């Protein structure tokens, strides 16, 4: 058993020890999306499972956007998110994102995939806070 293994075990315990163990989408997710590695836009999602559907908002605050639909396919852990936002000029810009959950046992589980906002295609990476 190596020093590294012991450290890893301890770190794993620390990471998973206080994980939220309920619905895997419930909680606050932070990260970014963008069309390229250098053009990124900060994103915060607050999601909640009510027993029938996942609802949520994007970027809570005065300019928050209500998510119109959030769908989880538990057979593949894929997630689809739809919302109607506005671009920088104030024009409507539909958001359609599709990603996959990873590290489900971790409190800081990941959600990443493709993100389309208006006519811009990109990717997104979110981590549960």
């Amino acid at each position, binding site marked *: 058993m190596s*020093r590294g293994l012991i450290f890893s075990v301890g770190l794993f315990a620390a990471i998973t020890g206080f994980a939220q163990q309920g619905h895997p989408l419930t909680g606050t997710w932070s990260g970014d999306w963008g069309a390229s590695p250098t053009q990124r836009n900060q994103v915060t999602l607050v999601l909640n499972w009510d027993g029938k559907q996942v609802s949520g908002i994007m970027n809570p605050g005065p300019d928050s956007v209500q998510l119109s639909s959030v769908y989880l396919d538990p057979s593949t852990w894929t997630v689809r998110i739809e919302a109607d936002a506005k671009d920088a000029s104030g024009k409507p810009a539909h958001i359609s994102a599709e990603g996959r959950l990873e590290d489900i*046992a971790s409190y800081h589980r990941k959600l990443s995939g493709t993100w389309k906002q208006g006519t811009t295609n990109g990717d997104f990476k979110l981590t549960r806070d």
Partner: protein
Amino acid sequence: MFKFVALSLGLAASVPVAAQDAFSATYDNTRQVTLKGPITRIEWANPHAYVFLNVAGADKIVENWAVQIGNPLDLERDGWKRSTVKIGDVVTVDGYPARGDALQAFAKSVTLARTGAKVFTAAPKRTAAAAAAPAPAPRWPDGQVRLGPPPGKKGYWGTPTASALVERTSGPVISMNGEGLLKNISDADRVAPMQPWAKAIYEYRQRRLLQDDPFTRCLPPGGPRQFQTPHGFQFVEQRELGRILVLLGGGDRNWRIIYTDGRPAGQGDDAVLTYYGTSVGKWEKDTLVVDVAGFNERFWFTNGGLPHTEALHLTERFSRPDLNTLKYEVTVDDPRTYTRPWTGGWNIQWVPDQDIPEYFCEDNAETTFVR
């Protein structure tokens, strides 16, 4: 001084019961390992004690193995002391190797080379304590059933008859080990009426051999799981204060309060969500009926990893048909996780004339091993 690892596919899939141990996730009980060498270190720590051996491999390179021998409380009860073996003693260990490449094993037996004495034998399951002679359930002067010991006596509630909570149905018994790990993952549908996401999470946890279980990190066993821990529990009925304390022998020495003072059940919207929720009980003849709500989502409420949400609402029924038997029944109502309310339960045996064990789960005690 040798190492021998043997595949034994026909080996009984018994799981040594070690307190708060992710046994199935850590060790492979389909293989066996025999280790011989001098002891280099003894870690007498909670939740698991270890001895470390220098073992020469086939290539003559000496490897230092960590051998888990159980938790100190159970070891002491079985007669093992910290001084049973000493650094430098040559021992032979038969056990289960860890999964993966770690130089770690779970001992089934430890034999001292200089005497040939087998100084440690892991029981597949701790033998249930001898029951008291059959007798009616003890009662208070007003006729109310006592959940604790008879007046002037000691005792606590010990061994449960089930290792995990499953829905009570007329179907065949679902086969699982002492940790709640299903023998056949296809039985998941029969465990409880789960929503699709909940079934996927449950199967995910099962496929990972329960390695993500918060209980093994010493987090509290809320919900029905508090009555599944290896070291039992105790009721302290404080009738004059209108409450019953539930003291746990395992876990983190937690306790839970069941209020019986007539207060309304349920949780206010601003209540702090906890591992044990808020419990309000009332007696219906000889059955204590307890309404519990206000759980957080940071634990697994039963062995085996059934999920829940903050909407979890339990109705527990405790009855004591005789001195030695506690009947526990619980109805699970969590509409965010399950398609309908469902009920399960088990019996628990009285351990007479003994104090509840003082087991302590100390998270990360083992991770102080720097090797």
